[in-house]
Structure formats: structure tokens, C-alpha cells
């Protein structure tokens, strides 16, 4: 694992965070499907990790995206939006500490995507309980979010190896993704 972030890494993390929030605010997809926001979030976090190749890159991207979203009033949740963006990223980084290099890029991306989705659904569960929802209903909501969000997150994770291989072919990644 490489040590400190350099300027290129910082710029790329900033780019991913900004693009994530901008795309989210521009598209404003009204698909009526819970969890579709996990697609963009998972995609940008995993690309960020794949390019920067450092633990902490996803957390930095998530917190930065949360701050930008909070300042631009993108999405629902007020200050909680920071948690909405930050929590999945932190969970994914934490998981990475235990599994870096243990799986192929494809499987690593899928597992990280599911862990990120678990954290995202967990945040929803916590919010629901805090506003006084009954435990049974909140748990049912949690399960539904996990399944729906997980599907979108896995779809995004499956794109990662192809995108990283293309970036490597264009000489934008020093190390070949494996």
C-alpha cells in the first residue's frame, strides 16, 4: 500500500466527488425505485479506489461529496446528507483493510459494493428508528433497501474492471488492474 496522497490523487478524488454530486443533482432521476442512488455512489467510490489505489480514498471522496451536497442542498436529509455519502465510503474503506488483495478485482468490487450498501441501508434504519418508526417496519424497510440498493451497487461494481482496464490502456493508471 502506498503512503501519503499526492496532488494528482487529491485532484482525482475531488473530481469524483464533484462529478458524483453534479450528476446526482442534474439527473434527478425519478425512477420510483429505492436504492438507485447507490449506482452512482458505488461507481465513483470504487473508481476512486481503483485509480488512487490507497485506503482512505473512498472515505475522502464520500466526505467531500457529502460536504458539496450539503452546501449545494442536493438530495434530502440536510446535514444528514454528509452521513448518507460518508458512511458507505467509510464502511467500504474499513472492509478494504481486511480484504485488500484477497480477491480478484471483480469480486472485490462486488463485495465492497454490498458492504457500502449495507452501511447505506443501516443509515436509513437508524434514521427511521430516530423518527419513531416501529422496529418491525423499520427492519422491513431496511431489508427492502438492502435488496434494491444492492442490485444497483452490484451493477455499478461490475463496470469497474472494464473502466479501469480502459484507463490503464490510456496510460492513466500506473499499475494494471488485476
Amino acid at each position, binding site marked *: 500500500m502506498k503512503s501519503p496522497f499526492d496532488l494528482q490523487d487529491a485532484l482525482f478524488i475531488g473530481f469524483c466527488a464533484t462529478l458524483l454530486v453534479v450528476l446526482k443533482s442534474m439527473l434527478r432521476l425519478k425512477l420510483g425505485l429505492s436504492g438507485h442512488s447507490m449506482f452512482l455512489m458505488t461507481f465513483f467510490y470504487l473508481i476512486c479506489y481503483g485509480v488512487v489505489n490507497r485506503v482512505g480514498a473512498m472515505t475522502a471522496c464520500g466526505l467531500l461529496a457529502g460536504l458539496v451536497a450539503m452546501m449545494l442542498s442536493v438530495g434530502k436529509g440536510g446535514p444528514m446528507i454528509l452521513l448518507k455519502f460518508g458512511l458507505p465510503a467509510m464502511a467500504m474503506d474499513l472492509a478494504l483493510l481486511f480484504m485488500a488483495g484477497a480477491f480478484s478485482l471483480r469480486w472485490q468490487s462486488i463485495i465492497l459494493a454490498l458492504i457500502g450498501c449495507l452501511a447505506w441501508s443501516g443509515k436509513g434504519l437508524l434514521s427511521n428508528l430516530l423518527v419513531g418508526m416501529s422496529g418491525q417496519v423499520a427492519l422491513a424497510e431496511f431489508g427492502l433497501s438492502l435488496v434494491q440498493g444492492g442490485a444497483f451497487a452490484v451493477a455499478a461494481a461490475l463496470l469497474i474492471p472494464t473502466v479501469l*482496464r*480502459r484507463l*490503464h*490502456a*490510456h*496510460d492513466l493508471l*500506473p499499475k*494494471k488492474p488485476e
Partner: protein
Amino acid sequence: MKIIALEGIHFGYGSHQSEILDDLNLVINRGECHCINGATGSGKSSLLHILAGEQCRPYEGDVYRAPSLLVGLVMQDPNAQVLRQSVGAEIAFALENLGIAADLMVEKVQQSLRRVGLYTSLDTPVEVLSLGQKYRLMMAAQLVFNPSLLLLDEPWAQLDDNGVKELNGVLKALLEDGVAIVMVEHNPSAFADLVDYLWLLEGGKLRAGQRQQAQTADLVNIRPSSKPRHRECLVNIAPHQFRFIDQEPLFECEQELSLHRGEIVALVGDNGAGKSSLLKTLAGIQANITNLPITVMAKRPQLGIYGSDLGLLMQRPNRQLFEQTVLTELQFSLKRFKLPLARAEQILTELDLLKLADSSPHKLSYGQQHIIALASLVCLQPKLLLLDDPFAGLDKYHVAKVVQILLQLSAQGCGILLTSHRGLPFLAVDRYWFIENGHLGDGAQITEQANVG
């Protein structure tokens, strides 16, 4: 006085590839002119980037730089280093970074433009300049801050003969002022009077090179007119004025020009004469032009109507490379047009490029990208091939290979129109078309003289 020195430099582009610079040493003193020659893809441009101090890939070895050394670099593809949108702003960029007072800038910028023979307004958008003009612009952008070391990547290939002559004068004055120059050049004889040290980069090391006889660029090589002109006409250009919408004419064509199957025609003109624009018009991809009386394969040129019958090689080869490996790049169009995929490996073998089959085309040198882009068109065996400066960045070995392939295609009935800044003594063509002083015409006189001679 030593201004820069490389000691034991090792550099490569990947763990699976051999090093392209292997224990390389070089010392450059004030007022010296070094010229580095070498095969396409041998690492010449990478060496220049290390000298410039902007090689972002890791390398081993020591680099000594004199204190307050100012380095100017003009890359092989000047588009890669254009930062601003107008000519004046581009040249002033370095001055802004050096903290020069704004009121002193205009004079310095104009002086630099004049030095490189680029007589254009400071407000001219960079995008309207041709590749050769952009090369001059980047030279002006480097000369403006009086560098102590000037690095030039293949100036001869990008400049017309006037440009080379003017550059010789500029470089001579710079050397007299104590500026050191390092140039990478496939044709060192064009700068023979200036070069103090001629190097050959081979096997990752610099060896003393041998002086060659000056290339006689004025010579033309015309094929005996044995081809019957009743063959299918591929390109017909009626008299017209070539102009962009709402602009002055770029050139005027006063006679009818045509290209038939199996013919090779060279379109020769100076930087900015309109060669690339004409080629793009023939391919149907030039935007912002008036309605012109031009037909290609009996149709008005339009994007996408010719399929695999027409191939266009752009001047910037990276614009038409997009796949992840060289082999898949060549196979892309073959798959699209349902042609035999085996042609890809066959053409790579013919060009002696099979070793690059699994490499990424985006990481290759300018010359290698050029030849791969050409190979991807040649394997389609089109009826008409439009090639914009196809020999730029190629060494003699690959030039000979490309010539051989073009002659083969021509024998199979492919019509070829290629552009160049100067005559092509190494390629026998049927005719020359010249764009001179705003006029496009057939060099019939030259053809006759060559045939009589």
C-alpha cells in the same frame, strides 16, 4: 559550462517490457547543439521529457541541473502542450508565470512570433492553426522566456521547408547566445550546420552517430505514366474556391483535378496551406465549409456513406486510436465490416510490428501510433486511402515498409492521396498536386520533366 547531465538513467514503460533507456549518460554544456537520432519508439521523446524534468513515470539515475535552469520543450504533437485559446495568450503564459510586467509582454510576444515566422494576430484562436503552425506557435511560446536549454522533438517532420530554414536561423542565433539545444530528429542532415554532437539512441544507450548526406527533399519521384486514365475515377475536384463559411478563401483551384484507381497522388504545400482541410473535406468530415464541387466515388462527400471503401489517416494518429491493444485496434474495423480478422496479424507481420500486438496503442510513440493507425486502415483494403502526412515520426526502416505497403495497395487498385510538406523522393507517385500561394494545381510540369529526365 555544464547545464544539465544525465547519469545512469534507466527508464521503461512497464514491468513486462524491457527498458527503453538503459544506463544512459549525457552531458550538455552551454551553447552546444545535440541531435539524437534513433528508430521509431526507441525512447527519444521519453529522453527529452526526462531532460525537461516533466517525466511523471519513475526512472532510476541521477539528473544534474544547473541552478536557475530554464528549459523550453516543443513536443512532437504540439496540441499536447497547448494551454490557452488564443495565440497571444498562449505565448504570454510563460511570461505570466515568470511575473513579467503586462506592459512588456506584448512586444516580447510579437517578437517571438516574428522569430518563428508566424505572422498572425495575437487574437487568432489556436484551434484554427494547422499542426505545423501550432508547432511554430509552441516554439514561440518557449523562445519568449529565453530558455537556457531548448528541447525540440522532430521539427523537420512538422515544419515545411521555409519553417526549417527559419528555424535554422533562430537556432543559430540561440547557440551564439549560449543557449543549449537538444533535438530529436530522424533527418539530422536538415540541421547539419548546427549540430555539434550527433547521437544514435540504440538499445537504450547513446552512441556517436554518423553524419548522413543531406536528404534531397526537392527531388520528386514520378512513376512512368503507364496507368490507363480510363480507370474508375475516385476523386474529382472541379475548379472552385476553398473557403470556410464567412471567411476569406484558403486557396483557389483553377483546374479540374482527379484521382483514379491505382494512382498515388501527393498533395504538397506549406504549413497552413489547407492540405488537411482538403483531405477532411474529401472524407466528408470537414465542418464549416461552403458547398464545393467535389465528388468522391461519384458521390458528394459525406460522413459514413463510404464504409470500408474509404480510409482517412489523420495527422494526429491518437485521434483515431481507441482500443485497448494494437491487435484489437486493427480488428475493430475488420469486425465492423465483416472482413477476415486474420488480415490484422498479416499486416502487423508485414510491417514488422507483431511485437506490439498486445501493447496499448495509447502508450506508443507518435511514430508508432502513426503506423498503427495506418495499418488499421490498410488492412481494410479500401478503394481510396487519404493519408495526412503518413511519414511523420517514422524512421527510414518504417518509411520503407509503409512505401512497400502503399505500392502493394496501389497495385491492387487502391487510389491513394497523401499530403506532405515537401517532395517524397522515396515514394514513386503518379502526380503531385501543389498548394502554392493560395492556388491548388496539378504539378504537370514537374511530372513531365521527371518523365523526360
